[in-house]
C-alpha cells in the first residue's frame, strides 16, 4: 500500500513508523527542510521537504496513485486543502486532522460526502471523549465502544478489593454475559485463558454488551463508586470538550483549572455548568485548595506532559479517586505506571487508531490500540470468507486472535468456543500483533 503522510510532527512520525513497520510504502512530506533532514535517518520511509498543500507538489510525489493520504500538519487549513487536492488527484482514501471543531463539528458527513475527505479526525476531541467515557464508567480506566456503541471493551485495574485476584479467571462469578480476554502487565498486553490467575495491578480487559458493562466492571474492580466531582487540570483542546461532555452527564460537578487568565475567561464563556478556576500553580497546596483530595476523578490534560504527570501524581497522593493523564510524547508513557497514575491517554494513539483503521481496509470498523502493540478491532466477516461457518475456537487458533464479541442482527453475543461464525457478523477481535496479516486473510472475502 502506498501511503503519503503530510506533516512529520509527533503524530505524523508515529503514523509513518507504524505503517512502515507494517511494510507499507510511506512517503513523508514536511515544509521544514531541517526537520526533514533530522527525521530521514530515523524512518524507513521516503522523507521529502515541500508544501503538502500544493497540488503540483502532490502530483510529483505520486498522490494520484496513493492508496492513502494522511494530512496531519499543525494547520487545519493545510490539512483540508491537502486532502481535497489529493482526492481530486485520485488518491484512494484521504484522512485530514482538523482540530478546530468550528469547521466540521461533530458531523463529519459534510466533509465526507460533500468534500470527499474520508476521515476527519479531531484527536483532541476524540481523546476528550475517551476520557469522559472512562470517567462515566465507574471502575474502568478506559472504555472503548464498538459496533455503533453496542459492544464495550473496558480496561480495569485490579486492586486488593477485586474478587479476581489470584483466582483462575475461569472460576469467576459471571455477573452478566462478558468475557475477560486479556490483560496488560508491565506495559505489555497478553491474551489470557481460563486458567490464568491475575495479580494486583494488572489491567484486565473485558468485553460485554453496552448495557452489561457497568455491573461487570463494578464486579471486577471490587468496588466502584460513581464519580461526582471531576477536576480537569488544563483547559486546552482536550480539557474544554471533556468538560462539555461531562457537564451534560447528570449529577456530575466539573471544575477546570487553567493557568492562563485570558484562556480561563474564554473557557468560562464556552462551558455552562463547569466551574473555571484561574490557578497558576501545580503545587500540592494549590490542588488541595480546590478540593482535589475529595475529587472522584482528576484529569491532567494541560499542554505539557511533564506538568500533567506531576499534577496527576500530586492528585493521586492527595487521595483523588481516578487519576488520568494525557501523555502526548511516547517517551513519557512508561512513567505513568511507575508513578501510580491510573491511565494515560494520548491524542497520538487516537490519531493512529483512526489512520490504521483506514489502512486496514473497508472491513475494519473500529480500532483500539493497546500498549505493547496489541489491538482490539472490529471487523466484518464477509460472505464467503475463510471464517464463515467455522467455530470461534477454530478461528482463534488459525488467525491467532481472540473473538470476544459478536454482533449479529443487532444483538450482542458473547460467544462460546463452539459458536459458529456466519456471514455479515460483526466481530470484536483482540489480537496481539502477530495476527495482523492473518486477520485480513480470515475475514476478507477478496483475500
Amino acid at each position: 500500500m502506498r501511503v503519503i503522510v503530510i506533516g512529520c510532527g509527533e503524530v505524523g512520525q508515529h503514523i509513518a513508523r507504524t505503517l512502515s513497520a507494517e511494510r507499507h510504502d510511506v512517503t513523508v512530506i514536511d515544509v521544514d527542510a531541517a526537520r526533514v533532514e533530522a527525521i530521514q535517518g530515523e524512518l524507513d520511509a521516503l522523507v521529502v521537504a515541500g508544501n503538502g498543500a500544493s497540488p503540483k507538489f502532490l502530483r510529483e510525489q505520486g498522490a494520484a496513485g496513493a492508496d492513502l493520504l494522511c494530512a496531519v500538519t499543525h494547520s487545519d487549513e493545510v490539512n483540508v486543502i491537502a486532502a481535497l487536492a489529493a482526492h481530486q488527484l485520485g488518491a484512494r482514501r484521504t484522512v485530514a486532522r482538523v482540530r478546530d471543531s468550528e469547521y466540521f463539528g461533530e458531523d463529519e458527513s459534510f466533509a465526507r460526502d460533500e468534500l470527499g475527505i474520508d476521515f476527519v479526525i479531531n484527536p483532541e476531541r476524540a481523546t476528550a471523549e475517551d476520557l469522559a467515557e472512562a470517567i462515566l464508567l465507574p471502575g474502568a480506566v478506559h472504555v472503548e465502544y464498538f459496533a455503533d456503541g453496542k459492544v464495550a471493551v473496558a480496561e480495569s485495574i485490579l486492586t486488593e478489593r477485586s474478587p479476581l485476584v489470584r483466582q483462575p479467571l475461569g472460576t469467576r462469578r459471571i455477573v452478566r454475559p462478558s468475557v475477560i480476554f486479556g490483560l496488560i502487565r508491565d506495559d505489555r498486553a497478553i491474551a489470557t485463558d481460563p486458567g490464568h490467575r491475575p495479580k494486583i495491578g494488572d489491567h484486565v480487559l473485558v468485553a460485554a454488551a453496552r448495557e452489561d458493562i457497568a455491573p461487570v466492571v463494578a464486579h471486577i474492580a471490587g468496588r466502584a463508586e460513581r464519580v461526582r466531582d471531576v477536576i480537569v487540570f488544563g483547559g486546552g483542546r482536550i480539557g474544554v470538550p471533556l468538560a462539555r461532555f461531562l457537564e451534560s452527564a447528570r449529577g456530575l460537578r466539573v471544575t477546570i483549572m487553567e493557568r492562563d487568565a485570558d484562556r480561563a475567561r474564554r473557557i468560562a464563556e464556552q462551558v455552562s455548568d463547569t466551574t473555571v478556576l484561574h490557578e497558576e500553580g501545580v503545587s500540592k497546596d494549590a490542588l488541595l485548595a480546590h478540593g482535589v483530595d475529595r475529587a472522584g476523578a482528576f484529569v491532567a490534560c494541560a499542554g505539557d506532559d511533564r506538568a500533567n504527570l506531576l499534577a496527576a501524581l500530586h492528585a493521586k497522593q492527595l487521595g483523588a479517586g481516578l487519576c488520568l493523564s494525557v501523555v502526548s510524547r511516547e517517551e513519557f508513557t512508561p512513567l505513568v505506571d511507575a508513578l501510580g497514575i491510573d491511565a494515560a491517554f494520548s491524542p497520538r494513539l487516537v490519531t493512529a487508531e483512526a489512520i490504521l483503521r483506514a489502512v486496514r481496509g473497508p472491513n475494519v470498523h473500529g480500532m483500539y490500540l493497546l500498549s505493547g502493540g496489541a489491538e482490539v478491532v472490529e471487523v466484518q466477516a464477509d460472505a464467503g470468507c475463510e471464517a464463515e461457518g467455522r467455530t470461534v475456537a477454530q478461528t482463534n487458533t488459525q488467525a491467532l486472535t481472540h473473538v470476544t464479541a459478536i454482533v449479529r442482527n443487532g444483538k450482542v453475543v458473547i460467544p462460546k468456543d463452539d459458536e459458529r461464525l456466519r456471514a455479515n457478523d460483526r466481530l470484536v477481535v483482540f489480537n496481539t500483533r502477530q495476527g495482523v496479516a492473518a486477520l485480513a486473510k480470515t475475514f476478507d472475502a477478496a483475500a
Partner: protein
Amino acid sequence: MSRARGRLGPNLNWQIIVPVVSGALLAVGAGLALCFLVALVGGDGAALAFGGPAAVVLPLAAVGVASGRRLRSMPLRARDGFFAVTMAWVAAAAVGALPFLLHETYGEPVDAFFESMSGFSTTGATLLDDIEAQPDAVLLWRSLTQWLGGVGIVVLVVAIAPATGLATQRVFYAETSGVTAERMTPRIADTAKIIWAIYLTLTALGFTAFWLAGMTPWDAINHIFTSLATGGFSTRNASIGAFDSLAIELVAITFMVAGAINFSFYWSALRGRQRLWPQAAEVRALLLILLAAGAVVTGSLLLADEGRGVAESMRASAFSVVTVVTGTGYTTADFDEWPNFTRLLLLALMFVGGCAGSTSGGMKVIRVMLLGKAAAQEVQRQLQPKAVQVLRVRGRVFSEEVRRGVFAFFALYLTVFVVGTLVMAAFGLGPLTAASSVVATLNVIGPGLGDVGASESYAAVPDGGRWVLSALMLIGRLEIFTVLVLLTPAFWRPNIA
C-alpha cells in the same frame, strides 16, 4: 472638515448636532401642524397656539435638517452624540411647551415645560387638575408628544446607538450592549424605517382594538398613542378608570406590554430567527415579573379584605402592576389607597421597567437580570476567589464591560434617586411624596404615592421641584449616563476628542 474649529468651549461638532436636533424638531413641528388642523376643525380657539409655533419651527427645522444632507457619512463622536440627543429632547420639550403657554393651559413656563417633558419622556405626570376641560387639540398634543417620544427613544436605542461606533456604544449604552446594540440591518436608515413600520402597525392594531372595545375613535387614537408609548396621558380625569370597561383595560394592558418589549425582538420574531435568545429571555423575564407581581398584589388585596371580590382584585392588580412595571401610569383603581405593603411593592416595581430598547423607562429588565446575576457571582466569589465568572443570560455571554456598566448604572441610579429625594424633601414635600415623585419621574412612570398619587396631579409640587422633576424625567429617559456625562468638567474642556 469634520473638526470643530473653535478653540474655546466644548469641542463639539455643530455640523452634526444641528441636523440631529432639527430632525427631532421637524417631527415636533409636524405634530404641531396636525394639532393646528384639529383645532381649526374643532374651532375651539386653540388653532393659533399650535399654528404659530408650527409656522416658526417647521421651516427652521427643515433648514437645519437640510444642512446635514451633505454630511451623511460623517462619523458621530460619542461627545456629539450625548449632546445632540440630550439637546433633541430638551428642544422638543421646549417647543412642545409653547402651545400650553400660548393657549394659557398654563401660565408659568415651568408648568408648560413640565407637561411637555412629561410627554416627550413618556412619563405621563401632569399638573392638570381638570383634563376634560381642555380642548381636543391640546389633549391630542399631549398624546402626540408621548407617541413621538416613545418612537424617538426606540429609534435612538435600537437604531442609532448601535451604529455610532464603539466609543458611543461603550459609554452610551455600555450596560445594554449585547442586547440592544445588535444591529437589525447594516444601515441605520433601514433600521429606523423598520422600527417606524413596527410602531405604526402596532398603533393601527391598538387603535382598532380600543375602538372595538368600546372607545370612541377619538379616545382610541389618544389612548393608543399613550399606551404603546407607555406614556400614560389620558383624555379623562379618571384615566382608563373613567371607561370602567374590562375590555378596554385588557386592550390597554396588551399594548402597554407591547410597548415594553424590545423592538428588535419583534424584528427577530418576524424574521423567524433562532438567535433571538437574549431578547426572548428578557421578554420572558418581563412576563414572569408581571405574572408574579400580579399574583402577589392580588393576594395582598384579598388578605387586606376590603370588600373586593377575587375577580375585582385580580382585575385591579393586573392593571396596576402592568401600568407600573411598563412605566405607563394609567390608573383604574387608586393604588395609593391600597395596603402599605402593596403600595411599597408597586413603588419598588417602578424601578424595574420594561425591556431595553422599548418605549418604557426604569432600569430595564435585562439590567435587573444582569445585576442580580453579577451580584450573586460576587457573593460566590467570596468562597472561590479564583473562580472565573462569566455573565450569561440563556447561553449568551456578556462582556466584563457590561458587568462594570451594570454596576455603575445601578450606583448612579441610586445616587440620583437619593439626591433627588433629598432635593424634593428640601422643597417641603413629605418623605413618601418626595421619594415617590422621584421614583415616578426618574422611571418615567407618572403617578407616585402620597400627594403625587394616582388620583392627584403634581400640582402639590412647588415650582423649583417641577424643574427638578423635569430634569429627572430627561435623565431617566436617556438612561442616566447620557445626561450625566454632560455634567462632567471633562465634557466642557476644549480640545479633547
